[in-house]
């Protein structure tokens, strides 16, 4: 267990270092591409924190991403609100957490687990997207809201303005690193251990005095809050918000990022998000309707060939070579 922790921290440090030196070799456009991918990586990590630790799959996680995005857009676009960026982020996180807490309360305390939870969250995602399209007086309907200003705020007398590529990249990279590290320390500590116990046998965990529904609810709410944060960051960087951001396709893409990167590793999903988005851009440039088709194939392939994600290839090869050597 301790070597596993050390390995994780080592890989984490390497990733942070790579992210740190990347601006020296990349131009402005490449920086923004990686920055946006990192935001989606944060989103993937938020899903992994819930799915990886509890084993319960949320099929509408983009709803929280979208809720965060829309709240951020509405707050920053309203000139009457001072400290728009800061209040927007707080509002986005709180809004996503609030919705998750309400839905989670009814589901977890109602004894809804497993597939039932997946279905209800799937419907939640469908409805969020429909609401974003049809409530056009607030959300701008199909075309969404445009002209969202970049994040700017004062901290300790210095003015932080993230309209340039490099500062925004550093800001996002720092937030992603801090949040991923925080989620990892939560999930490897006592909290995560209890969650694993609940996943293995909820009745036994409850008999040992753990309030399982409450633990699940808090984990789900935290996960949604981080998804909301990712949504808020994304709309400020992209400058627009659209119904797709809360849609079913994004909800399923984030599942693929987590599944490919390796469920329960927190770092894997971030890397999965970055690499799969890269692939998506390349494939979509040939034919836009090809991507969902390939996405479908990836789902089927993951289930049958790589149930533990891309990173498991390494472990499999290692065991393969070991058994070869033993045979000789």
């Amino acid at each position, binding site marked *: 267990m301790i070597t596993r922790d050390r390995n994780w921290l080592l890989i984490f440090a390497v990733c942070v270092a790579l992210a740190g030196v990347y601006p020296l070799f990349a131009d402005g456009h490449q920086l923004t591409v990686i920055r946006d991918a990192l935001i989606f990586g944060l989103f993937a990590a938020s899903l992994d924190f819930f799915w990886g630790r509890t084993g319960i799959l949320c099929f509408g996680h983009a709803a929280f991403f979208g809720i965060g995005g829309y709240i951020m857009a509405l707050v920053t676009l309203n000139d009457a609100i001072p400290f728009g960026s800061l209040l927007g982020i707080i509002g986005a996180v709180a809004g996503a957490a609030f919705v998750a807490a309400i839905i989670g309360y009814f589901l977890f305390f109602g004894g809804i687990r497993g597939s039932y939870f997946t279905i*209800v969250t799937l*419907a939640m995602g469908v409805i969020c997207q429909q609401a974003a399209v049809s409530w056009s007086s607030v959300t701008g309907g199909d075309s969404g809201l445009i002209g969202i200003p970049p994040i700017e705020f004062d901290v300790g007398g210095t003015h932080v303005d993230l309209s340039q590529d490099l500062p925004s990249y550093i800001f996002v990279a720092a937030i992603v690193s801090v949040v991923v590290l925080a989620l990892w320390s939560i999930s490897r500590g006592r909290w995560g251990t209890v969650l694993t116990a609940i996943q293995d046998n909820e009745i036994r965990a409850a008999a040992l005095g753990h309030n399982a529904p409450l633990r699940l609810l808090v984990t789900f709410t935290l996960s949604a809050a981080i998804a909301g944060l990712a949504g808020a960051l994304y709309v400020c960087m992209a400058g627009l918000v659209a119904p797709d951001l809360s849609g079913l396709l994004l909800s399923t893409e984030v599942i693929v990022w987590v599944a490919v990167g390796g469920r329960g590793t927190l770092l894997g999903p971030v890397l999965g998000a970055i690499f799969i988005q890269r692939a998506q851009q390349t494939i979509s440039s040939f034919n836009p309707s090809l991507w969902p088709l390939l996405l479908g194939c990836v789902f089927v392939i993951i289930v049958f060939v790589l149930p533990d994600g891309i990173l498991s290839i390494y472990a499999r090869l290692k065991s393969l070579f070991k058994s070869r050597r033993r045979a000789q």
Partner: protein
Amino acid sequence: MPPKPCSPACANASPARPDAMDFLITTLLNALTLISILMLVGLGLAISFGLMNVTNLAHGEFVTVGAFAVYFVQSMGGSFWLGLAAAPIAGAVVGCILEFAIIRHLYSRPVSTVLATWGVSLILQQGLELTFGLGAKPVTPPIEGTLDLIFTVYPAYRLILIGIAMLTLLGVILLISRTSFGLDIRTVIQNREMAEGVGINTRRTYAIAFTFGAAIAGLAGGLVAPLAIVLPQMGVNYLANAFFVVIVGGVGSIGGLVAGSVFVGGLTSILNYQISPSLAQAIVLLAAIVAVRLRPNGLFNGASR
């Protein structure tokens, strides 16, 4: 929420009749249309999700395939009725392939089933789009015009739809309660190991039951095709609603299926008049979540589990 309700105005209510009665009957018939469709789509899900414990997210695509089968037959010059006969066959073929290629290997891995069937759903949607092209596909109903009921006039096709749905449901009830295959299914549901012990081939029973559910969903797609917008992506709406039918109604009985359909379909139809369809959908979802919180085993199954 497809199918679109038929408003009293579009049904050409004559001024001599009392408006309130007209409105009531029309709303009731609209609700009945939706409930019939939901029952047929939910039946397959009640089999796979409720009884076999398989979360099949490609179930909505059986509806889509059924609707496209009607469109395809009509576009080749065939009649609607020929298309309606082809719809359940198309659903059954897709369902059978899905069961054989994917689902039977994943009975012990629920989350993997969710992911794999969602992948299949995306593949089918894009496959249909690549084959038939973008845009909504026109499907003409076999009978135009309306039928004069005493208190209101109502589109004749919708009445036929309700009739066919009811007959199908009756047929399913008879199949399950009267035939030897129905007996096999009930045995496997009650106790899989024991069923194997008395010599029932449970794998085969599962496969046939799954294919059967897919065929009924395909029939529902064919029936709804003239009323709905036929698109490769149309399945997801039916998927979400049908799951709620099964969750709210509880699994294991036809009564639960009917109760769930009446709850979801009735509420949706009534709300559709007052507010926008998306908001109506959201309220139905919330009501369903609250209903599940209050009666975890379904509306119909009091304390049977």
